[in-house]
């Protein structure tokens, strides 16, 4: 990243060298505005992700285990899924204007499908012998979900969570960028339209760093909740 502009592969005006980006970032980090913006973004992100995650898990499990529901909903799900959140911008501005509400709408819409599909596949991965065991011991529907379906789907769900966490963050920033709700995205937008290239890249780097942090947190969570899983236990043991 340092070498590319230094060697003149691209003009340093348009892609500043990494050192310049990092010093700019350090300077930005010293301003309270940045932290306020970051806080706004993280609030939209966390709220949106939580809403989307809960809704998708409930919907996914219900669709996955109630017979017939999957066929009933599949066409609608597949239709709605590829509709870009950004296409919902007019609807979002209409309903909420440039505020947390529109950020949430976009974030929830985008993150929901990520988790839902993972949950559906996860529910489908329940081992048939284990399932028969649960049935023959008369486990109620709720117990089956809690003790069998959920643990089986969990690895899929965790991947879904990681995917959704990033997508939610991306959408939070994008919503701010496009609609102008306050936050990191709005800061990027202002910097962009001011031609402040190093600031733009500094903020982008910050977004990336946040992503690393989010992933590390989910990984940590995964280690706790999936200690029994072959994928995790092989690493702990080794």
């Amino acid at each position, binding site marked *: 990243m340092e070498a590319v502009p230094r060697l003149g592969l691209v003009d340093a005006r348009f*892609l500043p060298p990494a050192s310049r980006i990092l010093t700019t970032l350090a300077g930005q980090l010293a301003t309270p505005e940045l932290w306020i913006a970051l806080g706004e973004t993280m609030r939209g992100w966390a709220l949106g992700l939580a809403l989307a995650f809960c809704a998708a898990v409930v919907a996914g499990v219900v669709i996955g285990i109630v017979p017939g529901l999957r066929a009933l909903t599949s066409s609608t799900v597949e239709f709605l899924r590829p509709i870009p959140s950004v296409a919902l911008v007019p609807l979002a501005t209409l309903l909420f204007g440039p505020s947390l509400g529109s950020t949430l709408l976009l974030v929830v819409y985008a993150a929901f499908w990520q988790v839902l599909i993972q949950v559906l596949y996860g529910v489908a991965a329940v081992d048939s012998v284990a399932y028969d065991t649960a049935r023959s011991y008369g486990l109620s529907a709720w117990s089956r979900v809690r003790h069998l379906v959920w643990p089986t789907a969990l690895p899929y769900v965790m991947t879904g969570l990681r*995917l959704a966490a990033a997508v939610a963050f991306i959408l939070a920033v*994008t919503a701010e960028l496009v609609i102008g709700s306050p936050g990191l995205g709005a800061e990027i937008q202002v910097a962009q339209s001011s031609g402040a290239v190093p600031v*733009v890249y500094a903020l982008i780097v910050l977004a990336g760093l946040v992503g690393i942090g989010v992933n590390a947190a989910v990984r940590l969570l995964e280690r706790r909740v999936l200690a029994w899983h072959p994928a995790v236990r092989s690493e702990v043991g080794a």
Partner: protein
Amino acid sequence: MRAVRLLALPALLVLLWWAVSGSSFYLPSPGRVGRAFAEIWFSERLAEDVLPSAGRLLMGYAAAGLLGVGLGVPIGLSPRLRATLEPVLEFFRAIPPPVLVPLIMLLAGIDTPMKVLVIVSGCLWPILLNTVEGVRALDEVLADTCRMYGVRGLARLRRFVLPGAAPQIMTGLRQALSIGIILMVISEMFASSSGLGFTIVLFQRQFQIAEMWSGILLLGLLGLGLSVLFRRVERRVLSWYYGSGAARA
């Protein structure tokens, strides 16, 4: 019966739409949108705007599939590689495509390669992550069996790793399909003068709301069509999985 099941919910939703539409400029009635749809998309627009977009989508999707599986397998197999690469990947994953686009434009120009690259930059992640997780979760006894019988290298990849991780890889591919469509739209928001995504954005900016919704409708239909196709393929590839009781669905 099958048709009834497939159509019941969509029909209900259209009814609901009908009921709430008209209350606002931004929510035209299904009839209006339907008319706009017929007017706009059953014309040369189809060849001019939709086909090139779809072509880029498929290119980007295929590239992301190859890249995602190609990277995901080694990362999934090697904990050390995972530890070193994961932070880098997570960094790029967290960067929103709209702010990534200017950077990609610097490197790849403003034409088709840029748009394909944007699609790849979004489709890659679900495939990559799912591949990594699928490979990590391979059955230990099967892995031991491979080691014992000297199944190594390419054969191990082809006979064990890929089929074993296939259920999760397919999950990723399915996720990526709709993300690809989304990024097709986003990529056309920059440096474009044609394309399905561009047209939708233009309609939106020109306040041609019914036309915009008809474009969104087309996106949905495109997604639906691709996912039906995808399911066909998946049922073939994973026939053992759905038959075996390793999965119940």
